[in-house]
């Protein structure tokens, strides 16, 4: 079974950075740091930190990027009581409280963006701004229309095509055995948190208006994982309200992998602008 995009693949670059365990309440998370400057929190998507090295390093040009592995990914704890994104949101409230002195920008991708939004509707006390890269987490289609490709039915080649479109994708042949194990565990973790309802929380849209920090939604023009990525990004902006804006970038659902520099640049520009807005409006709970 030839992997259709292997010929256009790029070698996987896990990125540099120091890994250490940090406490989030009673739960320990493996956190990877890179770059220097003010802290920026990066919340990863479905594949954990495996393919996000380049975007974290690009963000690290201006920030100290702190990227925790979610529970059940990497060496982070695997507490049985963490079953939902709601549970993860409380964990990350603990994490932000424990690790930040001041509000920091949060950049989050796909599943991580869902987690970040679930945190932000509860408190933005430690969140200066949100950059949601190709988020999932809300449902806009009707009851017979999925918003996302069903990874449990599509098969690995079709899932990769949906995630990466026509663009560059990691060459999985360059992965080590440990990387495949990491991916297998990451997929198991996704089944834990997002199998049903699939990749969304029906209640989340009703609380998104509570996000009171500047929010940037980045979406990929070639995102084939989301049924209608433009409308989907617009739905996020509409639900959050005047604090939110959406920007289209070239790339697929894995925008942060395929357009790492553009994502980092858009984020840095946004954070610069957002800081001013936040000071002006006094936003942040």
């Amino acid at each position, binding site marked *: 079974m030839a992997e259709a995009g292997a010929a256009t693949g790029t070698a996987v670059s896990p990125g540099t950075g120091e890994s250490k365990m940090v406490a989030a309440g009673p739960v320990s998370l493996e956190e990877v740091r890179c770059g220097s400057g003010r802290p920026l929190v990066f919340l990863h998507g479905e594949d954990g930190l495996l393919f996000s090295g380049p975007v974290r390093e690009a963000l690290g040009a201006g920030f100290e990027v702190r990227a925790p592995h979610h529970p059940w990914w990497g060496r982070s704890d695997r507490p049985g009581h963490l079953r939902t994104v709601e549970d993860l949101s409380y964990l990350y409230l603990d994490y932000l409280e424990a690790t930040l002195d001041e509000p920091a920008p949060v950049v989050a991708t796909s599943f991580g963006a869902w987690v970040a939004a679930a945190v932000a509707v509860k408190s933005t006390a430690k969140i200066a701004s949100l950059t949601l890269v190709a988020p999932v987490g809300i449902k806009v289609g009707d009851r017979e229309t999925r918003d996302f490709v069903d990874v449990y*039915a599509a098969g690995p080649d079709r899932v990769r095509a949906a995630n990466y479109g026509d663009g560059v994708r990691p060459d999985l042949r360059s992965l080590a055995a440990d990387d*495949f*194990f990491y991916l297998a565990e990451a997929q*198991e973790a996704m*089944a834990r948190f997002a199998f049903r309802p699939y990749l969304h929380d029906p209640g989340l849209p009703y609380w998104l208006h509570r996000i009171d920090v500047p929010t940037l939604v980045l979406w990929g023009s070639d995102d084939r994982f989301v049924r209608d990525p433009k409308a989907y990004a617009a739905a996020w902006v509409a639900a959050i309200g005047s604090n939110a804006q959406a920007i289209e970038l070239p790339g697929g659902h894995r925008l942060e992998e395929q357009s790492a520099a553009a994502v980092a640049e858009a984020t840095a520009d946004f954070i610069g602008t957002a800081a001013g807005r936040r000071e002006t409006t006094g936003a942040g709970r």
Partner: protein
Amino acid sequence: MRDVRNYVFTEMAYPYLPPDETFESARVTLPNELYDPVAGSDLYHSYFDIYRAADELGLDVMLNEHHSTATCLDAAVPLSAAIVARETSTARILPLGNPISNRTDPVRVAEEMAMVDVLSRGRLQCGFVRGVPMEVSPQNIPPIGMYERFWEAADLIVKAWTTHDGPFNWEGEHFQARQVNIWPRPHQQPHPPIWVPTQSAGTGVMVAERNYNLATILTGTEGAANIFGTFRKAALDAGFAEPGPERVAYSGLMFVGGSEAEAADGGEALRWYLRHNKAAPQFMDVPGYLDPTIRARIMAKWAQGEAPRSPIAYLTEAPLQELIDLGMFFVGTPDQVVEQVKAFDRAVGGCDNLLMMMHTGPMTFETTYQSMKLCAEEVLPRLREELD
């Protein structure tokens, strides 16, 4: 004298399918426009005729269920078990089983099985199964924590069967039930025998620790010997008596012919089951269902361009004698089948319960009946007499 039994099994397949290469998967996604309900009616009646005939011949009955698949049209074992309970008189009835990791209400399972047990006047042998990975999408049940749900469901069902002084409540980790007070209660006391099938020795340990009965399916002689041995040792370790041959069961495929040539034809006909079970890889390789160590190896091969293959795929073309030697098929004249079962029995430390698929795909009732008749009249009596 050993109480050797054969639980006749047909998976109730829909055999009128186009060539395998014209569709991706017989499971989950095959459009049911390919199903002709008129032909389907005849099939159901033929399948239940097989079970009624098994009963008349003194054999027992095994049932299973699957969903969204042409490979098995038994949509719910409580339904088929109820039909068999009413249509038979002496056969033991073994649903193997109730997919209790996927059922949302174990109390309903307890009540349904109690009804079958009462209706059959105590002939139910109750199987609980985790369910195959291909059931994850049709059932939309999270593939995480299936064993945890399985064991909690089993505990709740047993408590529902054995509580007779009014309602109890259950607020478990996975199941919550209010005012549990099933009517009817089971015919057998304290409850029907419980069977759990597995292909893993580790699960065999957990079955032993609950003092349930163990079945294994198509593991071959070597695999069955390993699993049964682990099961027996684990039972002793848990403080129970060592399970005898009546506490283990083995599922393979069987055809008994009047001649070697007839048997060989029957054996080849049985092979339909191995050849027409096409499932798309994504419905087998389900995150959370399979151990990530195994999935990592599958993903690594996939990345190199190798599609994953079923570990038993080679059996589809293996010589019939090899399938017999492996202990997966029992095919021959009565004398030959007796010897095959005796060899299996010796190798696995004793197994009284044969769960034999005696019908697959397009096999006719008449062909199946002749094989069952020889099994009942010329194989089982000798096994009962001659096995130690």
